[in-house]
């Protein structure tokens, strides 16, 4: 079996299985903990908890202006690589085919040249994020191994993807195999590190949203 067949075959199946099992393990493990029921009467006119939660999931997409004064880079750069990653994952034709094979439906993609540009921008943005993490005193203090591992495992699929698309560095099937393997590594790590925020943000924002909107407080 060559490396590409290994990557597309057993490696990908294993990694995806770990991803699914780990993600459910972590989510269920947290959500199955008993809640502290809030018996206090809601503020008059407060939305029901589920609505407060959903409102907040969206509300938190945009930071308050006052926090942007110091957090502009974090916010803008964060948006750049999140949108970049989303476009690369969900709008690149080969990726759509991959997702179609998993979910059974597909959608139109964007031209490769455009995706390539987005990928390059995303890689640059990730490098900037790392540089910021390594230089900001606050981030240096609060960062831990998880942050650097998660960064690397996000960065690798982007650069191997760019290399594969531009045929730089090695033969295409080797680059493709490395790309798939880097995604395997990403998937395996995902449930155990902060990458999990891709799912957790809904619950995290939602929980605070329910708490605050119940009180009639703004977020």
């Amino acid at each position: 079996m060559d490396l590409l067949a290994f990557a597309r075959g057993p490696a990908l199946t294993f990694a995806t299985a770990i991803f699914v099992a780990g993600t459910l393990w972590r989510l269920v493990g947290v959500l199955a903990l008993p809640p502290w029921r809030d018996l206090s009467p809601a503020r008059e006119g407060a939305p029901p908890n589920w609505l407060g939660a959903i409102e907040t999931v969206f509300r938190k997409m945009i930071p308050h202006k006052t926090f942007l004064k110091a957090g502009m880079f974090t916010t803008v750069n964060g948006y750049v690589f999140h949108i970049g990653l989303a476009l690369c994952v969900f709008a690149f034709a080969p990726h759509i085919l991959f997702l179609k094979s998993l979910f059974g439906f597909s959608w139109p993609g964007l031209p490769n040249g455009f995706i390539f540009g987005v990928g390059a921008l995303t890689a640059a943005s990730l490098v900037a994020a790392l540089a910021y993490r390594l230089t900001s005193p606050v981030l240096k203090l609060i960062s831990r191994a998880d942050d650097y591992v998660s960064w690397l495992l996000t960065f690798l699929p982007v650069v191997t993807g760019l290399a594969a698309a531009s045929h730089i560095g090695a033969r295409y099937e080797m680059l493709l195999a490395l790309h798939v393997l880097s995604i395997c590594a990403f998937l395996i790590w995902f449930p155990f590190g902060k990458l999990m925020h891709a799912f957790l943000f809904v619950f995290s924002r939602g929980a605070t949203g329910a708490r605050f909107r119940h009180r009639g407080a703004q977020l």
Partner: protein
Amino acid sequence: MRHDETLAAEMQRRGVSRRAFLKYASYVASLMALPPSAAEALAEGLAAARRQSVIWLSFQECTGCTESITRSHSPTLENLMFDFISLDYHHTLMAVSGQAAEQARLEAMAANKGKYIVVVDGSVPTKDGGVYSTIAGISNLKMLEETLRDAFAVVAVGSCACFGGIPAAKPNPTGAVAISELAGGKPLINISGCPPIPEAMTGVLSYVLSFGKLPELDHLGRPKAFFGETIHDRCYRRPYYERGLFADGFDDHGARQGYCLYKLGCKGPVTYNACATLKWNGGVSFPIQSGHGCLGCSEPDFWDQGGFYRPLPTPLGAMGPALAGAAVAGAALGVGAALAARSHQKTYLAASEKEKD
């Protein structure tokens, strides 16, 4: 059969000038993307060479490779190859049969000891002592071993000989293996494909004949001149790929427009061969041009890559059961973890209560 005369003298005897070598050399140089200045050296080499004894062994194969080489597109030019070599044994093409045929092989081996080239098409069954394919009562395994012993080099022609091919596809009932596994250190060239492009076969033989050495090979032993680039890299439909324009079915708008066949399972991006430039049937067409994706036939295990119509980026394994199992396991672990945490918390609280008392 011994061949003492130079090819130039032999051709001259037949009233053919050295221009024939020059023209043939131009042709081969162009095929193999050698610098045009190499054409003259190639012509000189060919002219000075002796007729090359070639022993062609056919094992577990379908004769498609022989069909391919004998139907090369320009008999007047390409057939010169058959003037340059002496095909001393090829059981499909030779006139004699039976004992006489095997005798011819042994004679050629004796007469050209250390100089003859062995061409093999087909894979060799190794299971159960190789009983699954025999010629004249001799197993392929034994015949290969015997013939290779005094050969100068071996050329594996076709994906079966190069990589095991279809006989070695799962579940490989005969234990078929590639020639490379049995070549025992002899210089080996793989010319893969199912079948290989005829020009690749004649080009490589000419090169060896003229320069007395192997051309530059890739990591799979294939001449880079023909296997240096992917079908995708040289495909005329590539701009559609870059634009994200794909055929979604074999009879949809995209297919009629001639859009890229990637979504229909084309293996062009990972297949190294010259189909997109040399094409087939005298440069008439190649699979993608006629509307079908590349099968990847010149790559190892092309039969076992999950299906010809399975797009390249899709996973090879059956994900469904694995993921369902993982989901159940993950949820169970999650519930278990939550219960464990609760009991752990209770233990802690109990300890704390005790302390209070």
